[in-house]
């Protein structure tokens, strides 16, 4: 009975300690879902060719999208550093200038990020459009291509 209680107590202490570590400890620094452009650049040569997620904002006006070749190029910034991204992927519906995005891929020797996967990070804002507002929807060019050919 006493041994049982001890096991239970040790278990509870372990769980609480683990939880405390989660909350106050360093796991927040280790459990990084994506790096920002300036963090990736700070890694220098070590970053080249190693698979990583990169997150930041699409620099307005930097997007070139070729719907025929499914070839997307844009620059991504975190305010401090900027990296050019190249993806052979159709942009998701919400991909546009100034949007938060996360890409999966590798930094090439040429300093261009070769993305195999492209995700849009939505903000926590939900608003109706202003009158006359037309959202920038690049994916529609794909639909049009398919419709005419």
């Amino acid at each position, binding site marked *: 009975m006493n041994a049982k209680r001890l096991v239970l107590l040790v278990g509870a202490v372990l*769980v609480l300690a683990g*939880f405390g570590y*989660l*909350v106050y400890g360093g796991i*927040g620094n280790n*459990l*990084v*879902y*994506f790096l920002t452009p300036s963090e990736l650049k700070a890694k220098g040569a070590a970053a080249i060719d190693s698979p990583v997620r990169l*997150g930041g904002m699409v620099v307005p006006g930097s997007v070139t999208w070729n719907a025929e070749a499914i070839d997307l190029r844009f620059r991504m910034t975190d305010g401090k550093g900027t990296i050019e991204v190249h993806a052979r992927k159709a*942009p*998701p*519906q*919400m*991909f546009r200038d100034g949007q938060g995005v*996360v890409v999966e891929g590798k930094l090439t020797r040429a300093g261009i990020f070769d993305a195999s*996967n*492209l*995700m*849009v*990070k*939505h*903000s*926590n*804002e*939900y*608003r*109706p*459009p*202003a009158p006359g*507002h037309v*959202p920038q929807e690049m994916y529609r060019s794909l639909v049009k291509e398919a419709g005419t050919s």
Partner: protein
Amino acid sequence: MGTGFDAARVLRPRGLQFFGWFALLFFLASQAGGLLLTPPDRDMGHLQKIMYVHVPSAWMSLLAYAIVFGFGVMFLWKRDLKWDLMAAATAEAGIVFTGLALLTGSIWGRPTWGIWWTWDARLTSEAVLFIMYAGYLALRAMTDDEMRRARWSAAIAALGFLNTYIVYMSVRWWRTLHQIQSSPSTVDPQYVLFLRLNAFAFLFILIWFAASRYRVARLTRDIEESVEERALRPQTEGVHV
């Protein structure tokens, strides 16, 4: 045994039925309002409307485990099995809302984020919550000793309750693809109104579902007890029924 079970005190089906119809109508009206009366979002258009299912489901998935934990504590304090049965009934409702939150999140993520699933801290911790509901219910099926089952259930409920805090804070502690919590200042008032109405609709459904399951659990237990009693009764009449 002094467990305090009394069939007459089981929630009356009539009141339960009435509440069920009320919850259903409230839910339909709130959903219809959200779908028909709110404008499309400037970025995601009508896809925003999944919010009225996804967000309330996610809230209920967290709330239900908190309630399960509360009932678990009540059992440990009072040693009355009715609290344990209430906890189990709430967990059965909770796992449905957790599954719904994961499913609608995935459906929402594909067109807006571009992916069905990713292992960021929010999605992972919510998936862990689902597993903790499943584990809670699976463990209950593994033992016949009611008091022991109730004690262990309360212990697991404490772990699950800790995890709801991790789910809630995950988007603040870590970088995630999932955005941080919205607030009335980041969401248009029209969306907020119908989000709130739907949150109440989901809460009513959670309560109705849990109360119905609790009633079934009580009736099942009453029947089991009377069968047991009959089996143990000395057969003085000498007649098998």
